[in-house]
């Protein structure tokens, strides 16, 4: 070809293509009917919604494939509302697409930057105002203003002091004391060693104090203990920790040392405890040593012994704080 090769140019907005409804009135009427049908479907949906609310009792169930036996009241109420909303939308969009003008309009953008004159005037106003306030010159005003604003900003913080008590030793102590009986959770029944078979597990709480009829969740959140029975020869413990067991029965705090979930998953064959939150795995035979997962510390072990009636009791309180770590924890 002989003509000059130009760089590729912007061919401009493509020519407008007319829709069927633009040129053919029959098509336009058809589109109008379609929009009307869509809006009417919405009305049907609303009627279904109202009828469902009034007429369908709340305890009727219908079988729907994939969903199974579903509550009819809930299903038809929801379907009615969904249809009524959805078809208003479909109608409006179809109306816009087929009947409203679809000529693209081009509008020029304007620069955001203000004119140089506006900018100069702004700077002058700002500078004049600042000079009038005199902050720059009067440093005594500036400094005392800063002091007063800073102090008043701090005062609401003081009002928040009573949001809660100081931690104190709350995180360091539980309800377990020397002689506290272990009781089943739920049921509050004291436990004798012969109540547990080898391979058995028990969810345990400290017996309530005399006169107490109720445990708070905050107490349960520190006191929950897991009791596990193995054979004594299964243990791989040092002498002190072994003395905290009784005839193969060992007790650990159920509150995970990682982030506080209940570590209650006991695998009888491997003798591992698994926390379902983040999959920390603890070895019961080695005093809940961490085998896998993000927990950094073993679960605290509760020392056990028998009381005069033959029931399992704590020998002493936990030797370390239970639950997740915190700054003041020393180990």
């Amino acid at each position: 070809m002989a003509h000059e090769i130009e760089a590729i140019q912007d061919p401009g907005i493509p020519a407008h293509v007319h829709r069927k409804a633009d040129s053919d009135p029959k098509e336009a009427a058809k589109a109008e009917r379609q929009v009307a049908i869509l809006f009417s479907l919405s009305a049907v949906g609303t009627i279904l919604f109202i009828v469902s609310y009034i007429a369908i009792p709340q305890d009727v169930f219908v079988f729907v494939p994939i969903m199974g036996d579903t509550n009819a009241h809930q299903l038809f109420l929801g379907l009615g509302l969904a249809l009524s909303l959805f078809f208003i939308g479909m109608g409006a969009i179809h109306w816009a697409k087929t009947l409203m003008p679809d000529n693209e309009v081009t509008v020029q953008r304007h620069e955001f930057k203000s004119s140089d004159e506006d900018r100069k005037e702004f700077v002058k106003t700002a500078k004049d105002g600042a000079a009038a306030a005199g902050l720059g010159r009067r440093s005594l005003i500036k400094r005392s203003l800063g002091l007063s604003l800073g102090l008043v900003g701090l005062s609401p913080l003081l009002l928040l002091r009573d949001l809660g008590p100081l931690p104190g030793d709350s995180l360091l102590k539980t309800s377990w004391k020397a002689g506290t009986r272990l009781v089943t959770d739920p049921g509050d029944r004291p436990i004798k060693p012969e109540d547990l078979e080898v391979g058995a597990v028990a969810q345990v709480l400290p017996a309530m104090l005399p006169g107490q009829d109720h445990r708070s969740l905050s107490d349960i959140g520190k006191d929950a203990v897991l009791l596990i029975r193995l054979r004594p020869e299964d243990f791989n413990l040092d002498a002190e920790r072994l003395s905290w067991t009784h005839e193969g029965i060992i007790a650990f705090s159920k509150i995970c040392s990682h982030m506080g979930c209940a570590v209650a998953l006991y695998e009888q064959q491997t003798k591992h405890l698994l926390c379902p939150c983040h999959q920390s795995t603890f070895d019961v035979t080695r005093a809940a040593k961490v085998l896998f997962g993000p927990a950094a510390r073993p679960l605290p072990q509760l020392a056990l012994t028998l009381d005069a009636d033959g029931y399992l009791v704590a020998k002493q309180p936990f030797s370390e704080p239970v639950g997740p770590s915190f700054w003041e924890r020393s180990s």
Partner: protein
Amino acid sequence: MKRLSKYRRHRAVAPLLLIVALLGIGTTFSVASATPNNSALALARSAAIEEGKQLFLKGCSSCHGLNAEGGGIAPSLIGVGAASVDFQVGTGRMPMADMSTQAMRKKPVYTPEQVAALAVYVASLAPGPEIPGDELLNYERDGSVAEGGELFRNNCAMCHNFAAQGGALTQGKYAPTLMGVEPVHIYEAMITGPQSMPVFSDKIITPEEKLSIIKWIKSAEAEPALGGASLGRVGPVTEGLLVWTLGIGILIGVAVWLAMKAR
């Protein structure tokens, strides 16, 4: 006495003494071993034990040992009781086919009569947990759904999930779903502690509490989809999957249609 001793060398003495001795031993033995019921039952039981033993030798001894003493890959069955056998064989877990992680519930290989025979045989080896009778398993009458739910969430949900759909354990093991499990098998699992599952002693979870747990499981199984399709009853994971696939898919589809030029 002098008169009797005159006949001590009589030739009828030996057979007579033999008859007396046999009668004496036989009587002593049958008196000593007499069961309260008639001997037909004892006969049937020993027949069942024998049948069970034959089944055991054929299908179980290759892993569990000729005398059920266990081996490298299978534990000893001495003392596991009839309940363990009824659970493991009755749910099809045993004989174990896939040895990789744990015994899976599958179609039982043995008929109920065969399972009963195996159970009787293993129970005869040493005392162990017994199969709970129907009277003990009347959970509709003796259990409480609400108490059962509390007990379930306290003792079972951490492995089997809040709706008994099952959950993962370590190293590829898992706690199976409890949907579609016979009440007797649920009870037996609690008292025998199969594989990774611990034992739930009767003093820790009383028989009545066990029935409540079973009643709650059955109620959860029968519970209809109250809010719509249950999405597996495993929590937010499937909910998020639905909104990222069907949910945003429908909306983007409508958006594409919205912006398309009409014909």
